[in-house]
């Protein structure tokens, strides 16, 4: 059993040593940080509650997002805060938190930011799961929340198909990605594809989107299956070989996307590999290496900013961000997730700039929400030119996706006339 030597430890009642209880509690309380410092006031300082998945499976998305949050904080500080419509300047503090890719932690952090920190707006949620968990919290607390995740259900109620009044996101959805993929496949004349997706919510959603959209473009999914995100063997590749599909569509994010890419490229030659927008990250190239050459995927413009035409307003925004990003990270290439964070935070700042000074917290949050719905028009973000409205809390135009390919270890725009 447990062993004789433990009898005393386990048996008998548990009498509380009150002194010990107090000692433990005191120690814990004593370590608590000092109360927050009041910022030197002009207008009341604004707080943005920023929650990203900096650790856990979402870290490859969340870390770039955190970098961008820091960059924006620096920029805002340099400008002396944000100016309201009445000219009063307000300091802006971006409170950066890590939800560890867990819905639980995200929910607790959201509640804390709303109730304790009294933020005016939340920019929260790298992954769809934690974002969805925060949706009822933000809605109940009447606090506007801008998510950096892609699930449609974040901004739209799946039953009623109506926009959730307090939720916004600048991130394109898997439906848009699938649409662009279908466009490409149709243009190059591929009618039979395999669809491999990682066994996560994101992957499942890419498959569902493909199932919804591909048939309309005359594309048949000959073989569709999930693969283990953390696996090293992929028996699914064997079945790809057997199915006779001419292209393999992959719904995954790196490193899983890289591993399956390597497996498919290594074992099944001659098929076109088409990724989804979740693979638009330098991590793909870094972890897939030569196997990623020639793959195509629909990506946000930020990934290929230097190749955009000079008159594209998005180009200027992106190049400035990339410069700051590389300075802050010591030369790392940018990913689309950083762009999502940039757009989300920019919206928040724009909206805060519409709030008159002196409003109580709940009215301020109302004002931010309204500003988001009505004042974000033709805004040049990292992924395109966006406009929000009461019926559209997304603002992303699917036409702003570009098809991108990997050539010599870099992302390169593939213009339509070169699709093959």
């Amino acid at each position, binding site marked *: 059993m447990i062993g004789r030597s433990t009898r005393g430890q386990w048996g008998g009642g548990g009498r509380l040593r009150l002194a010990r209880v107090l000692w433990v509690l005191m120690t814990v309380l004593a370590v608590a940080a000092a109360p927050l410092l009041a910022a030197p006031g002009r207008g009341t300082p604004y707080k943005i509650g920023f929650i990203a998945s900096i650790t856990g499976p979402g870290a490859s998305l969340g870390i770039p997002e955190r970098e961008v949050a820091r960059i924006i904080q620096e920029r805002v500080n340099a400008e002396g805060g944000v100016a309201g419509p009445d000219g009063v300047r307000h300091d802006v503090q971006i409170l950066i938190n890590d939800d560890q890719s867990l819905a639980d932690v995200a929910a607790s952090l959201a509640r804390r930011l709303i109730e304790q920190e009294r933020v005016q707006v939340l920019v929260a949620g790298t992954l769809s799961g934690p974002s969805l968990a925060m949706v009822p919290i933000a809605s109940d607390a009447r606090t506007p929340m801008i998510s950096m995740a892609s699930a449609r259900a974040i901004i739209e109620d799946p039953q009623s198909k109506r926009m959730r009044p307090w939720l916004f996101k600048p991130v394109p959805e898997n439906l848009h990605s699938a649409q662009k993929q279908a466009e490409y496949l149709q243009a190059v004349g591929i009618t039979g594809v395999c669809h491999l997706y990682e066994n996560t919510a994101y992957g499942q959603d890419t498959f569902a989107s493909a199932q919804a959209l591909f048939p309309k473009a005359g594309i048949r999914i000959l073989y569709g299956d999930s693969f283990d995100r953390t696996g090293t063997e992929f028996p699914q590749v064997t079945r790809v070989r057997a199915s006779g599909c001419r292209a393999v569509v992959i719904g995954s994010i790196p490193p899983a996307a890289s591993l399956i890419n390597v497996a498919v490229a290594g074992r099944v030659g001659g098929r076109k590999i088409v990724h989804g927008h979740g693979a638009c990250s330098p991590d793909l190239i870094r*972890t897939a290496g030569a196997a990623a050459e020639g793959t195509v995927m629909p990506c946000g413009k930020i990934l290929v900013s230097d190749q955009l035409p000079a008159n594209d307003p998005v180009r200027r925004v992106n190049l400035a961000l990339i410069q700051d990003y590389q300075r802050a990270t010591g030369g790392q290439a940018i990913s689309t997730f950083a762009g999502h964070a940039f757009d989300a935070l920019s919206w928040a700042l724009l909206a805060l700039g519409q709030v008159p000074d002196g409003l109580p917290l709940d009215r301020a949050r109302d004002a931010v929400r309204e500003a988001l719905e009505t004042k974000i028009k033709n805004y040049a973000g990292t992924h395109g030119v966006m406009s929000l409205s009461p019926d559209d809390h997304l603002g992303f135009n699917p036409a702003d996706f570009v098809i991108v390919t990997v050539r010599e270890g870099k992302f390169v725009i593939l213009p339509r006339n070169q699709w093959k």
Partner: protein
Amino acid sequence: MGTGEPPVPTVIDVPHVSPRRRPHVSGQAALAGAIGVTVVVLVALGRRFGYGPVDYLQLLVDGLRTGVIYALVALGFVVVHRVTGVINFAQGAFVMLGPMITISLFGMPWLPAPGQRLLLSAALAVLITAAVGMAVHRAALHPVRAASLLTRIIITVGIYIVIQGIALIIWGPRPYVLPAFSTLQMADRTFLVGEVIIQAQTIWIWATAAATVGLMGLFFERTVAGKAMRACAVNRTAAQLMGIRVDTMATLAFGLAAVLGAIGGIVLGPVTRPTFDMGLELGLKGFVAAIMGGLVSFQGAAIGGLVLGVLETLWAGVTLAGFKDLFAFVVLILLLLIRPQGFLAAREEAESP
């Protein structure tokens, strides 16, 4: 009766005897039977995918690759358990430290020739991991060697969490790349045997594992330290009476387990993308493999690893991706319920559970 042995019943403990007399089945026969049944079931499930013999062969090869890694990890469990009685949950952490340290060392330009650098980085990484393993034992387990077995097991769980946490701080959450041994780059050479694709790294895995097991056998048979360790495993008190420093042997056992784990992780590294949390799954599955040998038999653990690897890969080939991990844990439960002493415990060194 010392406190470091594998668990022995306390006081007078009447084993739970089932009222029906069970027919006496030898371990090997039972295992062969179980494997046979499983294979038949899996093949039947695989028919809907139209798998041919080539596909099954491919799955077999892939499974043997994974299985060899499981076997190495399992051996680490057995070493520690036989010498100290503890189930070392930190074993998975050693599997992770091997490749991660190798990658860090390889990335530093202290030797121009990449091949040499990789080899030496790997060797250094193994040594460092061994040091970590021994330090872990000295600091956290040796002082409480009189504590209950369960307490010490939970301590190893805590140690796993700490090591993984430190790995997260040092290396971050991103996946890293360990170059393939044959090409010293990410892309590996592949061989075609018939229609079955074998990566060069797979050969490395098999060769390294064989060499490691061979060396370990030599260690236990020929060296004084090895024989002393075996003596501790068989009868701790007698070993002490013979003048063997049992505590030193315990620390050494941890070091050896760390070496085994690290080698397994390093040689697997190029196939996957090493991450700070890769040790959890490998550790748990290696543990299941070790149970096949009742935690006391090296051969049992090695064969258990291979069997688990192959069957699991077969299962992965016929089921939804998310259910792949289910297999190992169902096997674990079944093993614990039906035959916790394992199928393959070598008779002369078997201990009762």
